[in-house]
């Protein structure tokens, strides 16, 4: 990835950006997020099949002292979140320099080997291997074996269930939840300073990791994501209890696609789904 | 844009001159028409008064053939064919139920329908300069009434080429030849086509009015883009004159024939010899007049 390193060096040298958020090698065959502040740091930047993290989460979550513009290395899917963040007034487009990368697939989780069965689900139906938005684009596209869209299959299975079965399925899942909020913290679009669950007066969502609190937590999170989530899959990935939370969001995305032909973060000039409306709109469910 | 050619029955029969003149003119533009392989009736004739499904299935078949053969546009010079193809492509795209029925009848999946264009659209697409360069003979002095009939610029709102009541696109093409399009009233009046066979007397009345109005506005000839119009105005004109002697004999030309003329193509090649009302004499006269001037 000489090209990447060179670009990064150039940016830092020219002072276009004060630092670049990227990936660096970690462990045997893994990577981890990394901040390059100097040209020397830039040498350490890598991009490969193990860069599954969505770094845009750092844009307004991390406590990185913000001075001047940020550079970020981002895959097509990550850039969709950046687009959302711009549209949601979280960062000004001109303040972030996007080093887009042509993505050739990512592993499910850090440190996994690059094999078909380890390919992340988000890559299965990816449409933005070449990003829709960037300031500079590096890398070339190579073909790779797309994985089975097991997420979709799972969703279809669940849809096929009776309400009672569905309820049982999700109860089993949510009972596992320990409310570590890894899903929330890893999500670039969950950027509230004080999440609704952290608000008492009233305590809409009970903080206890019990079936009550867990259910409402996961429902409300999915709802707040609907029409916004770009399906980067970080929530599912970081969940220590292996709960497939992400599919709730995927399901919501399917709805926004079906009813509005809308995909979040694809076009920075398009108005967001939440906060806009058409006079006539699907309402067959309203009497 | 790969364009298929849908002749339809007329081009092969009653309006051979239309077909030949078209081919001649396009030859000069070195455009070759590729006919849809195994095309069938467009359903214009009696199909749509007997069975809506049949009248839909027939054009649908041709549309599908074109798509299957890798065309994304169909050029149907016959206005009737055009109308049927256009309406059906609209119907199968908007009415899924009907589309399903048609698929059932045809026993094949319907592919995305190709874009349908008529004579005017087809020629309007061609670069005006190109056409102007081909002009050998200036037809100025020849006053032309452009007759669109009921199909060329209809239906309103679907056919976006031109205004359906006050069209002007044919005039634009005609004026390339130097001929003067006259401003007249019955550009889109009915020629009685639908009654052509059963009630010729009605056809006569309607067609006569058209001819008369054209003449009243100093037109020497009437230019058409539709075989039906042509047959009614040309073929029946003798009879009209017999029944209404005051009718002034007026040659009826296809747009392509007029273009051909000014491009210096031989009369017979254009098929001018096949007309009931011989245009040649009149044209010669006019052109000489020009020459003398």
């Amino acid at each position, binding site marked *: 990835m000489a090209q990447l390193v060179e670009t990064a060096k150039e940016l830092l040298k020219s002072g276009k950006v004060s630092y670049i958020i990227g990936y660096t090698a970690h462990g045997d065959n893994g990577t981890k997020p990394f901040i390059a502040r100097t040209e020397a740091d830039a040498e350490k930047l890598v991009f490969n099949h193990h860069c599954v993290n969505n770094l845009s989460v750092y844009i307004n979550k991390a406590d990185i002292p913000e001075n001047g513009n940020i550079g970020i290395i981002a895959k097509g899917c990550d850039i969709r979140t950046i687009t959302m963040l711009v549209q949601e007034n979280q960062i000004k487009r001109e303040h972030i320099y996007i080093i887009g990368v042509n993505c050739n697939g990512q592993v499910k989780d850090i440190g996994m080997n690059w094999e078909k069965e380890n390919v992340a689900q988000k890559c299965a139906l990816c449409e933005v291997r070449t990003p829709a938005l960037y300031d500079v684009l590096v890398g070339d596209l190579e073909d790779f074996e797309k994985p089975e869209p097991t997420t979709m299959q799972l969703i279809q299975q669940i849809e096929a269930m009776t309400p009672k079965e569905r309820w049982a399925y999700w109860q089993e899942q949510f009972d*596992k939840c*320990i409310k570590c909020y890894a899903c929330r913290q890893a999500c670039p679009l969950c950027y509230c300073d004080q999440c609704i669950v952290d608000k008492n007066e009233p305590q809409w969502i009970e903080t206890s*990791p019990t079936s009550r609190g867990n259910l409402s937590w996961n429902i409300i999170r999915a709802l707040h994501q609907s029409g916004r989530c770009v399906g980067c899959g970080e929530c599912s990935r970081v969940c*220590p209890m292996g709960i497939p939370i992400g599919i709730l969001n995927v399901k919501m995305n399917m709805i926004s696609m079906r009813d509005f032909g809308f995909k979040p973060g694809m076009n920075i000039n398009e108005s967001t789904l939440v906060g806009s409306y058409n006079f006539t709109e699907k309402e067959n469910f309203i009497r | 844009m790969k364009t298929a050619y849908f002749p339809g029955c007329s081009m092969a029969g009653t309006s051979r001159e239309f077909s030949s003149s078209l081919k001649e003119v396009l030859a000069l533009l070195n455009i070759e028409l590729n006919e849809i392989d195994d095309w069938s009736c467009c359903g214009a004739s009696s199909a749509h008064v007997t069975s809506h499904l049949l009248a839909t299935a027939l054009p649908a078949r041709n549309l599908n053939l074109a798509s299957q053969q890798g065309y994304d546009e169909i050029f149907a010079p016959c206005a009737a064919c055009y109308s049927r193809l256009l309406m059906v492509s609209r119907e199968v795209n908007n009415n899924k139920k009907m589309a399903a029925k048609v698929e059932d009848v045809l026993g094949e999946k319907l592919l995305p329908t190709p874009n349908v264009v008529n004579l005017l659209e087809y020629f309007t697409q061609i670069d005006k300069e190109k056409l102007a360069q081909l002009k050998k003979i200036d037809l100025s002095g020849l006053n032309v009434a452009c007759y669109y009939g009921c199909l060329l610029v209809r239906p309103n709102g679907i056919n976006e080429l031109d205004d359906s009541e006050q069209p002007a696109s044919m005039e634009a093409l005609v004026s390339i030849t130097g001929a003067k399009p006259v401003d007249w009233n019955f550009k889109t009046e009915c020629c009685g086509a639908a009654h052509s066979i059963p009630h010729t007397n009605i056809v006569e009345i309607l067609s006569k009015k058209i001819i008369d109005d054209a003449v009243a506005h100093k037109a020497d000839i009437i230019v058409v883009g539709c075989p039906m119009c042509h047959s009614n105005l040309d073929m029946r004109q003798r009879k009209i004159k017999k029944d209404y002697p005051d009718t002034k004999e007026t040659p009826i030309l296809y747009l392509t024939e007029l273009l051909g003329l000014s491009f210096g193509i031989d009369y017979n090649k254009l098929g001018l010899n096949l007309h009931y009302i011989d245009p040649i004499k009149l044209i010669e006269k006019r052109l000489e007049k020009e020459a003398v001037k």
Partner: protein
Amino acid sequence: MNEYIITSTNINQLAGELLNEGYNVVAEAEDGTAFIAVAAGSNVILNPFGKPTNLSPKQYIFPKTETLFYYKKSQTDVEIIDPTGLGHKTVIFGTKPCDSAANKILAKVFNWDYKDEFFNKRVENTVVIGLKCGYRDAQCFCTSVGLSPESGEGSDVFLTPLENGDYLAQTITEKGAKFVEEHKKMFDAISADKNKPVPMPEAPAKKFDAAKVKVWLDSNFENEFWDGLGDLCLGCAQCAYVCPTCHCFDIVDENFDYTSGRRVKNWDCCQFTMFTKHASGHNPRSVQSDRFRQRVNHKFKYYPDRFDMILCTGCGRCSRGCGVGMDISEIVQAIDNLK
């Protein structure tokens, strides 16, 4: 300390029997995410060579949520109802040394100035059947915090896998001995000939010298080393909640309706922004790096200071589970390598 042999069949037998006796029987889940209750008739999973579960068995002595009491208000007074079924008899099978060791460490803090009856009752009624550990990976560092994959520390009964698939069972504590006594028929006596323990891989190399690290921590609360350390930490509680020794909790009241509710004790975590946020809005640990410093210090300085024990068993869960590859052992190692 007595030694017995217990066959894998007997282990399942034992589990079944315990269930009949009304015990909660707990062992690894098949998917390896956590320790879960063993259902009647299903096998006990012992996994000496497998990766430690995502979630430590901590929850069986210090549950993720625990009701302290229920209340019901009337116009004039409040009625308090104690929760029932506290400290149910429990047997945990196959905890690795790094998990077993945790209970003793936690016992310190839960019996420090105030004796936490919830915790103690549970420990009291829990029998820990530990298991020798044959798993090694980059995140393991039990040896660096004074433990070893072979130590029975914290177990009541300690199992060592034998080559023939049986296990060598050593009673470590009184409780363990008593437990074995009660279920004697499941345990066979040692017969010298066939007791070859399965050879274990080498213990993980020491990553750092905890004592040396503490010395540095003692005098370096303020140090540029900490700056930006937490920049990439997302501030979730994964590390703390999966940790066998983290024990912070939060107490909240939950209403069922406008008159009744309960007071609950839930896991909490020092990595949350809200953890130290004052009502005033001021936050003494304002940035993630401060919070991460707290985590390191709490484990390797404050706890040793107060209880002379490191608040870490080196199981490496926090690092394995971290979504952004934060690895505490690497960081402490870095401290060790300073100057």
